[in-house]
């Protein structure tokens, strides 16, 4: 389904990615959701903002990934208290986004089944809505222990295992409530939001030219992807086109981030299936990779390398040659390790048919990114909407239809190989020229979108500028919002000891969804 088929008068947005926006009323909002859902279009994000000071009331936005770009549908939430029609009955992934929207803005989806808080635990009162313009974000409150109504499973021999928020490893915090019988998981309910640190509120009033630093710290493992998406949104608002060399270097950074994360995950997955050898080998390769990042770009995780208007670092020909040579070395080692993984019976026994998400379920619930591609969802922004330089690189999309841990491992191996090919091509073909163009943000006002295929999946940055060079509202959306609920499905019927393995095979972000 194409954007125009929605029957709405969408206005094209300037920027690197194809996107359009339209203001609708309640009936059109629901009709658009219905039309997109029945055509199999995916909901990318849902968020809201307070525009009462501009006489526009509270605004709720939904972004859908149509066949020819992103359709942003904008609704003024009417009534007192303000509300809008629920879309979670058509897009189950919207349920938690709607709950978060209420916690932060006090705008309710009417008709939604689940009205429990999501990001608000006991740390601020229920009548304090931080994203309202008149709310003082600097206020602090007494933290209270919250009571949260988990869904209980009853029956003979059923019991609960509560896990977290602090987990038994070096992992981000979150709470998992397992209902089990024997060793088998009957149900998992996630309770996230523990690392909510008020990022959306923190963005308010930041200079447009500096806020990429905050975007780059929404989820540290995706700092390049977020910084690029933020920069893309800021450039879209300011009407700035980045120099060609900067676009190529951005892709170089993004592919290096993808390889680093996949190397880390492949090692951890081997370790979670009791092959410590895998962790030792892959973590050695990852360390070499990060050290090269530090030497060439000045930062191991590549933070703050992408800035609005371009990039902050411009490697010379010698450095690019070095990056190319490193690809050859790593490629050989990864190939050897893949053979070892593939032929290791014990490992494959743990990987195969574990934590399955069928392609049908993945499509219905909107499984995004890498995990989606491992469950037959053929989507990758680098292929579907290739912005520069991907339009010149002919990216090959990885894919697998099995939907189990083994498939998510296979997709990671395939994506490493493809990213190494892309890095080689970029280091050879990147055009010469300036690396950064000044962004004229002083008078920039309006709305811009950044949409980037990070290593985990597509992430979105929606930016409103206030006309005086500052951020009015910035919302960062992580694909983990879509994928966390799928993890609850993937573990059903599996044994509890396989949960860490299944969880790692998705490796979703807590910080990215808690904001």
């Amino acid at each position: 389904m194409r954007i125009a088929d929605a029957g709405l008068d969408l206005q094209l947005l300037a920027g690197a990615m194809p996107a359009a926006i339209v203001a609708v009323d309640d009936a059109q909002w629901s009709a658009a959701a219905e039309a997109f859902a029945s055509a199999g279009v995916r909901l990318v994000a849902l968020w809201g903002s307070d525009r009462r000071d501009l006489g526009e009331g509270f605004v709720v936005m939904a972004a859908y990934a149509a066949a020819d770009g992103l359709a942003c549908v904008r609704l003024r939430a009417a009534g007192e208290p303000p509300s809008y029609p629920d879309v979670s009955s058509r897009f189950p992934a919207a349920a938690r986004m709607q709950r978060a929207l209420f916690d932060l803005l006090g705008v309710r989806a009417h008709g939604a089944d689940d009205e429990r808080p999501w990001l608000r635990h006991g740390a601020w009162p229920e009548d304090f809505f931080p994203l309202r313009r008149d709310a003082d974000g600097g206020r602090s409150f007494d933290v209270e222990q919250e009571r949260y109504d988990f869904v209980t499973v009853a029956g003979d021999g059923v019991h609960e295992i509560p896990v977290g928020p602090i987990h038994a490893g070096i992992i981000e915090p979150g709470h998992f409530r397992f209902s089990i019988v024997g060793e088998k998981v009957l149900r998992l309910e996630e309770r996230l939001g523990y690392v909510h640190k008020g990022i959306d509120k923190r963005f308010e009033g930041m200079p447009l030219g500096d806020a990429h630093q905050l975007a780059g710290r929404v989820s540290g493992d995706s700092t390049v992807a977020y910084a690029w998406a933020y920069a893309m949104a800021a450039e879209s608002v300011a009407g700035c086109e980045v120099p060609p060399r900067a676009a190529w270097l951005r892709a170089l950074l993004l592919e290096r981030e993808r390889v680093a994360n996949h190397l880390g995950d492949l090692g951890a997955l081997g370790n979670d299936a009791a092959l410590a050898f895998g962790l030792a080998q892959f973590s050695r390769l990852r360390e070499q990779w990060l050290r090269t990042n530090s030497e060439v770009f000045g930062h191991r995780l590549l933070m703050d390398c992408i800035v609005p208007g371009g990039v902050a670092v411009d490697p010379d020909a010698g450095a690019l040659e070095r990056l190319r040579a490193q690809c050859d070395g790593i490629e050989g080692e990864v190939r050897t390790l893949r053979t070892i993984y593939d032929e290791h019976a014990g490992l494959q026994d743990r990987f195969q048919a574990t934590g399955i998400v069928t392609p049908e379920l993945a499509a219905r619930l909107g499984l995004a990114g890498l995990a989606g591609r491992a469950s037959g969802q053929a989507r990758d922004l680098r292929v579907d909407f290739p912005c520069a330089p991907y339009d010149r690189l002919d990216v090959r999309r990885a894919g697998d239809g099995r939907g189990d841990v083994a498939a998510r491992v296979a997709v990671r191996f395939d994506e490493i190989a493809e990213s190494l090919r892309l890095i080689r091509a970029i280091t050879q073909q990147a055009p010469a020229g300036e690396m950064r163009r000044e962004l004229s943000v002083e008078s920039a006002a309006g709305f811009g979108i950044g949409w980037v295929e990070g290593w985990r999946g597509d992430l979105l940055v929606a930016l409103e500028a206030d006309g005086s060079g500052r951020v009015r509202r910035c919302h960062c959306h992580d694909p983990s919002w879509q994928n966390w609920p799928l993890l609850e499905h993937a573990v059903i019927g599996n044994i509890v000891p396989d949960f860490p393995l299944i969880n790692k095979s998705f490796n979703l972000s807590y910080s990215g969804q808690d904001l």
Partner: protein
Amino acid sequence: MLFLGRQILKAGICTEKAPEPNDAWRIDGERIQDNVLRLLGRALTIRQVDAGSCNGCELEIHALNNPYYNLEGRGIRFVASPRHADMLLVTGPVAANMKIAVRRAYEATPEPRLVVAVGDCGCTGGIFGESYASCGRVSNVIPVDVAVPGCPPPPLEILRGILTAVTAKQP
């Protein structure tokens, strides 16, 4: 199996030398530093607590377990429970939603109950600062012995921070 053995041999041993402690990171007046590492018989156990980080610091703490830093080879181990830990390694600004959990982890840790705050957020609150949702620096919530700056600090600096907390202050 043959491939596996050959790969281990080919990769060899890449472990590097441990860094020296950095006295500048000690938070003064907290306690008299002793050579805890010696008392513990080179068996330090650490419970890592993400109190609200962006996950960047966790990635670098993970790296401490890779063969280059070989943490376990130095007798330092990450454990699953604060009750088994000599030290808490805390990252992030303390998210308000994590405040109770962080306090409880601290109370559950037996003496000497060392605390090392890792990263700019742990040291100062970092880019997130203090707000309705963030309590800022770790020492706003629990006592801290050593604070390691950096966004994120590289693994070597985190290891330096850990060693600073368990060795006596240089005269």
